[in-house]
């Protein structure tokens, strides 16, 4: 491995890291919103919409991100819907992640016992306020381990972005290998940059998990 080559490539990888992080986190944000809304619809058993959520989950959990991205990027323009590669990345990641996030939030909501709801109702809380003040906070803190796992999974899935010509980490590595054939150096940098991106998430996730557990569960 050539040290000088590695150093000279770092700026390219840095740029790619920022792009990956930007699209990755925007996609994750979208997936969290979808997850929360979807799980709430399931929780309140909203007629019809509940079914749609179910179908959505099945579709997006059971097809690869690669194919979802191709569909959004290449097939939708054929019916007149054109979006940029970046937006496509955010949308694709958000939709895939949303399906997983719904399931994670849902299991958190289900873990809160019904008698907690009844106890809130008996104090005069409306159903909406029971959800907002009593059920959701407990469900969220129980969902944290699953959410952290999902976030790490989604950040890793960003490597598929290279297929729709987004200059992410994977794309940059492949591009540089194609031009200068320094395979080992590029693969080394690729691993290092993915670790730089993901290890902080793991660490922060573990800290948050411990914090919310300390806040009062396990009785």
């Amino acid at each position: 491995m050539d040290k000088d080559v590695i150093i000279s490539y770092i700026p390219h990888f840095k740029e790619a890291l920022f792009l990956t992080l930007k699209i990755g986190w925007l996609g994750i944000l979208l997936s969290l919103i979808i997850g929360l809304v979807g799980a709430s619809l399931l929780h309140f058993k909203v007629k019809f919409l509940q079914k749609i959520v179910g179908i959505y989950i099945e579709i997006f959990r059971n097809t690869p991100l690669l194919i979802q991205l191709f569909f959004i990027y290449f097939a939708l323009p054929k019916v007149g819907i054109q979006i940029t590669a970046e937006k496509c990345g955010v949308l694709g990641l958000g939709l895939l992640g949303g399906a997983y996030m719904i399931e994670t939030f849902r299991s958190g909501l289900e873990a809160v016992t019904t008698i907690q709801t009844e106890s809130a109702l008996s104090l005069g809380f409306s159903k909406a306020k029971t959800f907002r003040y009593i059920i959701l906070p407990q469900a969220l803190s129980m969902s944290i381990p699953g959410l952290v796992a999902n976030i790490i999974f989604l950040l890793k899935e960003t490597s598929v972005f290279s297929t729709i010509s987004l200059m992410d980490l994977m794309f940059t590595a492949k591009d540089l290998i194609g031009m200068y054939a320094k395979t080992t150096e590029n693969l080394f940098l690729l691993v290092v940059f993915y670790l730089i991106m993901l290890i902080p998430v793991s660490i922060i996730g573990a800290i948050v998990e411990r914090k919310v557990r300390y806040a009062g569960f396990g009785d």
Partner: protein
Amino acid sequence: MNELLDVKYLHKEFDNNVVLKDINLSVKKGEVVVIIGPSGCGKSTFLRCLNGLEEIQSGVIRVDGLEVNPKNKDIVKLRQKIGMVFQSYELFPHLSVIDNLIIAPMKVQKRKREEVTKEALKLLDRVDLLDKKDMYPRQLSGGQKQRVAIVRALLVHPEIILFDEVTAALDPEMVYEVLETMQELARQGSTMIIVTHEMNFAKAVADKIIFFDKGEIVEETDDVEGFFASPKTERAAKFLDRFQFTTRL
């Protein structure tokens, strides 16, 4: 008459299983009604019907003249008149003791934080838990949790409080501290409906005893001493006899 609670011909079934049949009951302001009876006789279900946690198939429940019906919009308002304390405490685990106490008055009744906090601390002090105000429920003992749950119900200023076997999950020594709190409430003139298996407590605190069996009221009397000395129905006699047997052991 100032009937606070009025139940007429209450009938409730779960999937064609009749669990409560033709229950009639009226409770006056300040009255303490104790419901006893064998497990599975419908006592708890009856309490849950009273604040609209269960739907009923026929009959009417009125509190302060207003009908309790889980399908009505005003059930949320009405429930503030009917407090409930559960066997399993059901404190909110994500909130500290003081936040457990003030959340309903603040978010539901829109009362001022300072005013509610002041009242909450006063009541906490009265149940000897002032030093626990910033702790989380999991850091408290069962008896302490239950006393917090009672204070929480009181802070909404209900007209009537339902107690559903609130000491059944507690160690004997903790039973005492909870019953003491309830007795104090009774002395202050709170209207209470209590489901319990603590016969001595029932004897001490009740203005009226109701003996439930198989989903119906078998015996109802204001003569509390008389009931425990010599119940009028055979079923109540048998039930009490078994209880005395276990306490004699």
